[in-house]
């Protein structure tokens, strides 16, 4: 458990954007692992198994407890008109003067503050290495919607980081 607890917690926390819920999911994942302990104890793929279980448990949790966020994203389509022209900050300008630990914390905070329908595709694509097709299928959204959500998520993340970079000294709690 010690070997994988950070990975399991991180996976759930990034998908959910909520540490307390992520701890619940991590607990469930390890209890499932305990049920298969004999099989997993010597299995080199135990980490991958745990990651998949954590991801599935998180999907189940989101399905049960979050309010139809897929429908919510579809309803937001009417607001699309103002998005394509959004200003994307230049990457080189961001977080240039912030030390590594602080930058990592800022990114985690910014990620957690994204709305579900933006954070989840972003996490699945960049952290979980899922393809567009797999994400769209898992989240039951259209490919076009997924691409729009991903683009908005990246742009929102970049904007937040720019803002955070400017005000990092006052907002960070190390």
């Amino acid at each position, binding site marked *: *458990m010690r070997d994988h607890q*950070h990975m399991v*917690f991180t996976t759930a926390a990034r998908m959910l954007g909520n540490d307390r819920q992520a701890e619940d999911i991590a607990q469930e994942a*390890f209890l499932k692992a305990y049920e298969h302990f004999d099989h997993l104890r010597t299995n080199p793929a135990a980490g991958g198994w745990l990651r998949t279980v954590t991801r599935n448990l998180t999907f189940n949790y989101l399905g049960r*407890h979050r*309010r139809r966020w897929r429908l919510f994203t579809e309803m937001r389509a009417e607001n699309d008109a103002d998005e394509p022209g959004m200003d994307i900050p230049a990457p*080189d300008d961001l977080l240039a003067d912030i030390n590594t630990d602080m930058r990592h914390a800022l990114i985690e905070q910014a990620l957690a503050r994204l709305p579900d329908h933006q954070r989840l595709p972003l996490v699945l694509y960049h952290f979980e290495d899922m393809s567009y097709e797999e994400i769209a299928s898992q989240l039951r959204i259209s490919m076009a919607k997924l691409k729009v959500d991903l683009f908005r998520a990246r742009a929102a993340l970049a904007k937040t980081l720019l803002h955070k970079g400017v005000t990092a000294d006052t907002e960070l709690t190390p």
Partner: protein
Amino acid sequence: MTNLTPDRTTQTKEEQLERWIDHLLREQPERLAPDTLQLRVLDRVHQRAVRPWWLCSYSHWPFAARIALVMTSIACGLLGVRVMAWITAPMASTPLAQQLPGFLRWAEALYEAITVVVNHLPPLWMYGALAVLAVLYGALFGLGAAAYRTLYVAR
């Protein structure tokens, strides 16, 4: 962070952003799990270990208990079929009164009443009643789902 966009002129701004975010996120180290996680898991494992078998899920029951449950279920099913056969059979062919002990005479009266009602109801009424029951069940289910989504999920 400055070496991310060597061919910036050929990239769209969107691709540039994607590459930068990808690089930024993949650089992120794993977060540290809270100290309480291990304790919580161990506590739950202990709770499960001391929990009696009948409170566990069916797959964790002893083999004999699983067989007993299956046999009991089959017996209940057969009993249900038998009871239905008694109710729907004509009164004359079932000497029920002779089979019941004295303290169950009320069951005989109930049986007779049900038999009379069932045998004299027009089939259309029966189908109508079943349809009404189905509609009421559906309405109850729908109300429950709506209440759950409104009062619980929305929180």
